[in-house]
């Protein structure tokens, strides 16, 4: 078992569902990643940002309807059995690392961010982070500091908003190329 105590900026180590999560101070992310790269984590599998806006605010089970009446698309009793644990900040961004050798191992490095709080780019450590970080910016609006080419990747260059944020509206987007233009 590798000890992760030496990881710079380590806030907390969590074990759940057979996975290890290292929560790291966002200002020391680059140091922590460089350290883990030295430890042999040579592949960055994925970079996954998550928006926790409204986390834990779903109705509890048994509650029928909403103040606005019943919505058939959201049956009223959809809810928790118990409320989830609160999250420290609005966004998390996780880096799934893989140690690819005879003794394979996976670890998740996680940092917590407020809206607009930047995070350092890890492209210099794993070149594959290039598109993953562009996607994190495009879909979640997490500013990546020091990225060589931080442009949108899946949406158009002039798109407004970041579609995977929880406050991004579903439906009702303006129709492009309509007959009125």
């Amino acid at each position, binding site marked *: 078992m590798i000890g992760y105590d030496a990881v710079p900026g380590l806030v907390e180590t969590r074990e*759940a*569902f*057979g*996975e290890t*999560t290292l929560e790291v101070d966002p200002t020391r992310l680059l140091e922590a990643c460089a350290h883990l790269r030295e430890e042999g984590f*040579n*592949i*960055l*599998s*994925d970079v*996954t940002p*998550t*928006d*926790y806006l409204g*986390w*834990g605010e*779903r109705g509890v*089970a048994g509650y029928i309807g909403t103040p606005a009446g019943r919505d058939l698309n959201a*049956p009223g*009793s*959809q*809810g*928790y*059995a*118990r*409320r*989830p*644990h609160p999250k420290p900040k609005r966004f998390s961004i*996780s880096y*799934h690392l*893989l140690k*690819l050798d005879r003794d*394979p191992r*996976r670890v*998740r490095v996680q940092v917590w961010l407020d809206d607009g709080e930047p995070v350092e780019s890890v*492209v210099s450590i*794993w*070149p*594959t982070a*290039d*598109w993953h970080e562009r996607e994190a910016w495009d*879909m979640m609006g997490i500013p990546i500091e020091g990225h*060589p*080419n931080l442009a*949108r*990747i*899946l*949406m*158009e260059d002039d798109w407004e908003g970041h*579609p*995977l944020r929880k406050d*991004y509206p*579903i439906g009702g987007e303006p129709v492009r190329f309509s007959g009125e233009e």
Partner: protein
Amino acid sequence: MATVERRPRLYEGTRIPSPIPTVLQAPEELRRGGDLLTVNFGPNHPSTHGVLRLVVDLEGERIAGIGAVVGYLHTGFEKTMEQKTWWKAITYPERIDYVSFQYNELVFVLAIEQLLGLEVPRKATWMRMALSELNRIHSHLVYIGTSALEIGAISMFWYCFRERDLVLDLFEMVTGVRMHTRYFQAGGLAEDIPMGFYADARRFCVRMPKAIDEYEAILDDNRIWRERTVGIGLLSREDAIALGQSGPILRASGVDWDLRRDQPYLAYDQVEFEVPVLHGGDVYDRYRVRMDEMRQSTGIVAQCIERLEEMQGEPWIADDRKVVLPPREELHTSMESLIHHFKIVTEGYLVPEGEIYVTVESPRGELGCYVVSDGGPKPWRVKFRAPSFVALEATATCMRDAAIADLVAIVGSLDGVMGEVDR
């Protein structure tokens, strides 16, 4: 047989462009000299495997600069899945990678099961393996057929699609649909395995190795094929790892890594198979790795069928009425079953709070699924690690100094499925 003798050695060190790892920038003096021709390759060219756009700077026939532009097929699967109950969301992943649909379904179902802590009956596990290996054969056949077609070997396309249809016939027999089967449920399989499947699958396992012999007879020593693929699209071992590559691309660059063997899931630790590894790092070796993998997959399917035949009459789905739909016939006689059915279909089941990252070895490489649950009936966040997305990051490195005519061969060998790249 004619062979190509000169085979350039795979380069050592790194050729990843700097500062942007995925964009090869043409030298400034070329640009100023006016000798560059910028060509938009795609997004709607028939041989770009969907809607991929490559912006290529040409110096004569040589590629001096290249950048890939993706996103034309973005459909917002991940956002849509957040709006659906867990049960309904299983339908979506299959549409993400429409060539290896069952892997996407499998990885999402595995994530749900691990969060729920659900025990899956062994019959379901072995059937999942059998079907996903059939899917691997299907996916590789589509790759070989189309990429040979693009290089001019039209007959390959017909031969590959002949066997591909047999795989789809098997899927149809089991699930009722040829693609996007939605056969895997959280807890097991949607239905029992139909009568006659084992016999047909066995027949397929006998036929497939002979078909692969035929493909090899057409391509392996074919002079044109070798001229077009050997030593083209080079990617060294270090670069493949730095660019996060996985699957056949990684194995063709000499990295001995396969999730099925090195981090086994399902029951892969109980079947025998070999992991083909080659060291050329070129288009030809990527083709060879996939060819060998099809043989291995056929062997795994045969082993699965053998085991499955011993499990006649065993349950195919877990007996957990809070998660699994009750048997159809019970709805007419049991009030509890009717209530469970209604609750699962309308509200869905609750999945415990947590986050998880599950990976499987898809035909294109490491397919990952990151799922966050808040303990409610819908996924809070779903994110797929698409192997094609990562594979296309290697275009700039593979195409350094390539000729424009080789561009199609190289893109084909990376085997990107644009639905998965853009999600």
